[in-house]
């Protein structure tokens, strides 16, 4: 394990409540600004509260990461379905606030998510990432995520069941430096 493992232990991850939505709303804007589309988000705090906590079924669920007593990041997900393999999860947003970077927060969020997937027999985890997000790509490669497609500089990544279980158990593949500017995605099998 890397020298960051001690810092990673200080991160806690929990399910969000409706009271977290103002902070999540802030972080949604942080993420949009980071992607260069500061006016992208159109939802209000009340929209998030309504869609996440007042509708049945809820439209999404959120995991909150806390570090040093502060909210440090979030993962907003929805339940999905594969007609081949059944229950799946799609990660719409994964974000760590700038001041909490490089403390293992993203890794802790993904691990908690994979633990939840393993417990619920979810066998596929999908998300998208911008092609130029090098730190994110480096982490995702270590999860064993499979690069499925790319357009307009976005990548769709899939974590298959063996990798979900491995990540839930706390395993990561060794870091590999990018070759010719691109990450090769290794596999656990």
């Amino acid at each position, binding site marked *: 394990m890397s020298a960051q493992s001690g810092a990673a232990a200080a991160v806690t991850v929990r399910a969000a409540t409706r009271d977290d939505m103002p902070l999540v709303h802030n972080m949604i804007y942080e993420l949009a600004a980071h992607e260069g589309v500061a006016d992208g988000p159109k939802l209000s705090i009340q*929209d998030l509260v309504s869609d996440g906590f007042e509708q049945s079924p809820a439209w999404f669920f959120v995991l909150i990461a806390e570090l040093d007593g502060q909210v440090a990041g979030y993962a907003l997900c929805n339940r999905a*379905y594969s007609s*081949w393999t059944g229950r799946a999860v*799609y990660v719409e947003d994964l974000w760590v606030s700038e001041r909490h970077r490089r403390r293992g927060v993203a890794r802790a969020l993904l691990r908690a998510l994979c633990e939840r997937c393993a417990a619920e027999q979810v066998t596929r985890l999908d998300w998208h990432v911008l092609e130029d997000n090098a730190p994110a790509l480096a982490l995702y490669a270590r999860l064993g995520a499979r690069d*499925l*497609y790319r*357009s307009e500089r976005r990548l769709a990544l899939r974590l298959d069941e063996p990798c979900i279980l491995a990540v839930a158990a706390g395993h990561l593949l060794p870091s590999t430096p990018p070759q010719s500017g691109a990450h090769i995605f290794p596999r656990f099998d």
Partner: protein
Amino acid sequence: MSNKYKSGEVIVRAATKHDMSAVAEMIQELADYEKMSDGPKLSIKDLVHDGFEKQPPVFFCKVAEKHNENILGYAIYFPVYSTWEGRALMLEDLYVRMNERRRGVGRLLFDAVAKEASATGCCRLDFHVLEWNPACSFYESKGAVNLTNKEQWCYYRLTGDALRDFAKDG
């Protein structure tokens, strides 16, 4: 030389659990078409449980039916969420049986899902399609935007005016 079905000959309706045997068959046909025959792992019982017994259902399904008997095609979809714009739908599967192609059935199914997306206030309808699938030109003709293009999977999004127009005029 059009072999298109006349209006009313084929209807699209919500699937019931009794349709899952036909849907399971077509899921396998779709996998065979995509050259990934080993992909499907679910049984008919899994589909019945996930779509009709579990609360809330894990997916929704529409079928295209002729003469109250034959199921000609299906669509599987489920709700997703955009943190920028809110409620959305993902179209996971859209399939028409091989011997029923080019008769307008796919369009009826796609229309029905787009209409549902629009009627339920969804900001977008997302779906994936393999790059070599001739259906790409159909989706593009409806104003869908090609978001992704790698490893021969294409990610399409139908949104805003294009979605409303298609749901209205399809």
